[in-house]
């Protein structure tokens, strides 16, 4: 297993090289010149030229790429053109927010998705099944930004029971330890802040997790239906195992492999695809920030974020593969099978 993990981690290198070339070329070739954006309406041509020179943008593309890679290897991703803050600082000020939202969304999606899917499968063709699948259909077809606004209007604007956006009340925010507010508030023993963070997470998690929930519910239903037909389920029932146990221990567990794959993929896309949710809920994450930086041609930041998301994506997939082995002991990543 360890060997397998090391091998997978080594495979990160070619992936990252590929990603870095793609993002580098796309930004340099298709983005407008950052100089006028950074320097503002009073900039002269000479000022813009001098600025490009200082920031190494007058050098040939391959030299610029080489400098960028040199920076990546030494851990220096440069400074944001627009705010002059180090890229790593800008990213780490926002990445925990994105992860916190993605994790809570995927928890919401997995919990409800699996429950809805399992009930639909067990009570196939019943009212529960139809209701579950209609919910899933609505989930996949509703645009996130629209759902977000509707949730805000209902729960915040009309019922006044949930906040309309933001990550926490500014004056209740916990002291920063890890950057994850839920963890930080527990570490500092600040329960009021913990509750406040939780409340702020509800609407954005529902909005963001709705699509994934629908996908997971459908996948669980079909996977469960297939498993429930298997011989070992009949055997278990014949042995007198209670129905609940049959469903939980025998059917669901065996149906989980494809579901976990879907959850892993969904989680990866939540990390990079939370742009709309972040904008609607004023969530201070990396998605909306990156879009803003793309519009401002802030090359160092965009390159940094894309590399980081690529690394995270690969690692999540690795974790998913490792989880397979725990779910199904027959799967072993050993030399013999490879």
């Amino acid at each position, binding site marked *: 297993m360890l060997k397998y993990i090391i091998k997978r981690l080594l495979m990160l290198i070619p992936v990252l090289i590929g990603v870095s070339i793609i993002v580098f070329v796309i930004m340099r070739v298709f983005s407008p010149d950052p100089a006028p954006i950074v320097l*503002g309406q009073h900039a002269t041509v000479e000022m813009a030229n001098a600025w490009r020179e200082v920031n190494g943008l007058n050098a040939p593309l391959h030299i610029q790429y080489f400098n960028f890679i040199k920076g990546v290897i030494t851990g220096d991703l440069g400074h944001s053109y627009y705010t*002059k803050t180090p890229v790593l600082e800008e990213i780490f*000020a926002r990445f925990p927010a994105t992860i916190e939202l993605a994790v809570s969304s995927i928890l919401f999606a997995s919990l409800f998705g699996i429950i809805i899917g399992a009930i639909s499968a067990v009570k196939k063709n019943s009212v529960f099944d139809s209701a579950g699948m209609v919910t899933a259909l609505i989930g996949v077809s509703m645009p996130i930004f629209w759902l977000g606004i509707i949730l805000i209007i209902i729960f915040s604007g009309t019922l006044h029971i949930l906040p*309309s956006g933001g990550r926490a009340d*500014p004056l*209740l925010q916990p002291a920063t330890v890890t950057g994850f507010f839920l963890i930080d508030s527990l570490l500092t023993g600040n329960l009021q802040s913990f509750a406040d963070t939780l409340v702020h997470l509800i609407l954005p998690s529902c909005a963001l997790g709705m699509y994934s929930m629908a996908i997971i519910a459908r996948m669980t239903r079909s996977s469960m239906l297939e498993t429930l037909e298997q011989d070992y389920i009949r055997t278990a029932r014949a042995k007198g195992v209670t129905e609940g146990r049959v469903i939980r221990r025998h059917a669901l567990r065996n149906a989980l492999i494809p579901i976990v794959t879907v959850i892993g993929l969904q989680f990866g896309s939540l990390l990079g695809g939370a742009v709309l949710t972040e904008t609607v809920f004023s969530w201070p*994450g990396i998605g*909306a920030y990156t879009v803003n930086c793309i519009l401002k041609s802030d090359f160092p930041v965009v390159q940094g974020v894309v590399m980081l998301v690529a690394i995270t994506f690969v690692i999540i997939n690795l974790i998913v593969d490792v989880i397979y082995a725990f779910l199904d002991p027959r799967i072993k990543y050993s030399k013999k099978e490879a």
Partner: protein
Amino acid sequence: MNTVKRVFCVVLATVLLCLTFTACGSRQQSPTQASTDTLIFAQGAEPRGLDPALVDDGESSKVIVNIYEGLLKYAKDSTKLEPCLAESWDVSKDGLTYTFHLRKGVKFHDGTDFNAEAVKFNIERQMKGKATQDMSYADFVYGYVTKVEAVDEYTVVITLKDVCTPFLYNLAMSIAAPMVSPKALQDNNNNVNEHPVGTGPYKFVRWDKDQAVVLVRNDDYWGEKAKTKNVIFKIIKDNSARVVALNNGEVDMIDGIDATVVDQITKAGNVVDQPDGMNINYMAYNTTSPIFSKPENRKAFSQAINVPELVKSLYQGYASPADSILPSFVPGFAKDVKQVAYDPEAAKAALAKAGITSVHMITYSNPRPYNTATGQALAEAVQGYLSKVGVTCNIEVFDWTTYKQKIKAGDYDICFYGWTGDNGDPDNFMALLSDKDPTMNVARYDNPQYNELIAKGKATPEGPERDDIYAQLEKIQADQNPWLLVSHSKLLSAYSPKVQGYYYHVTGNVFLSGMSKNK
């Protein structure tokens, strides 16, 4: 699952649910919102930074004016100049030397003294040679300065290379002009974007990226202390979410709204504020084109368009028709100047006589601060009026970046443009029509008499004589019609009725120190 595990899960779930519902229940009165000690202003984008020399955007400047101060400041409801960190100033007869007498006993938030050396440090940091390329306003504000001397602890003498009365107005701007603690600049590698230290009524506490900037009252402030202890600038990017946050009582004030949400805001019992903005929205005739090189043709076109009606229908009351280039609160504004009156019959006759049947128009596709309805909507409205007098318009629409290139190329009869003022000086608006750069002077207007008056205005000290020069310039514009003036767009913001003393300055800044909040 064994019993212990099961019990643990149930307990955990119950605790989480209880916490959530407790917090939900108290939502309407969260500690921050309920407190009269905290004012929350929600804006639509994150500040670029909090170092006045390194930013150029309105979102930064809203926060900056509460932390920093400059030598001069604007009056509450106009851009007239008032003393601030400089108690008084003298200008030499030749207009080249400015002597500022500084306020005594002022300290920066880090405890260091505000004095002549600090002023010298701040200006020299942005002068040619020392300024970095990304100090976008350094040249605009301090480009004329050749020397700064600290004569004694509280007297600064600034020498200019040429006479420039707008220089005083530059010193009241919220960008480049505010004074930063020299110690903070030295400690932070000449960049206090994230460590702002000024002399203003509020001190910086922290900046949670993409969430909020938190400030606290400066209890050692030299002037009247701020009425409310805490101030939070919250970043809410989505326009509808910002409106819900105000109506829900989560924030006290918002800006960046448009006419479509005004009803929603007032129905919830909140107040909409709409002063005229420091801007002008206009249509320019290309005075180098065969048609519009003749002033009589420009006049005939202007007569064909009913500006008040157009402004009313296009901006629904959130812009006022412009009778002069200068907004009414800018010094030099001339009340009695009137633009060409609507007279379609006269226009029709004149255009028929001149044999003009079609014109080539270019415009922009996006909304601009001075024209929220987009250049395209404005061009189409004008097209409608012109068709009534027998002129067809070929409109070409471009995105803003391409549009500016088209303007530079100059292949048009009519184009649409506008201007947002920088420093509240009349020269900042009026000099556009004498600028050599065709992307600034889009009418490509070149009138020696006008240019001469502009030079004179720049060199004449503040006062009635100078105001008269700008009145003359406005009259020339109204007679010669290089532009058809359309509107001054209003600055829309909204606030909760609990907020006392609300005001949104004409420069688009909010000064929170005079505001308070009722229970």
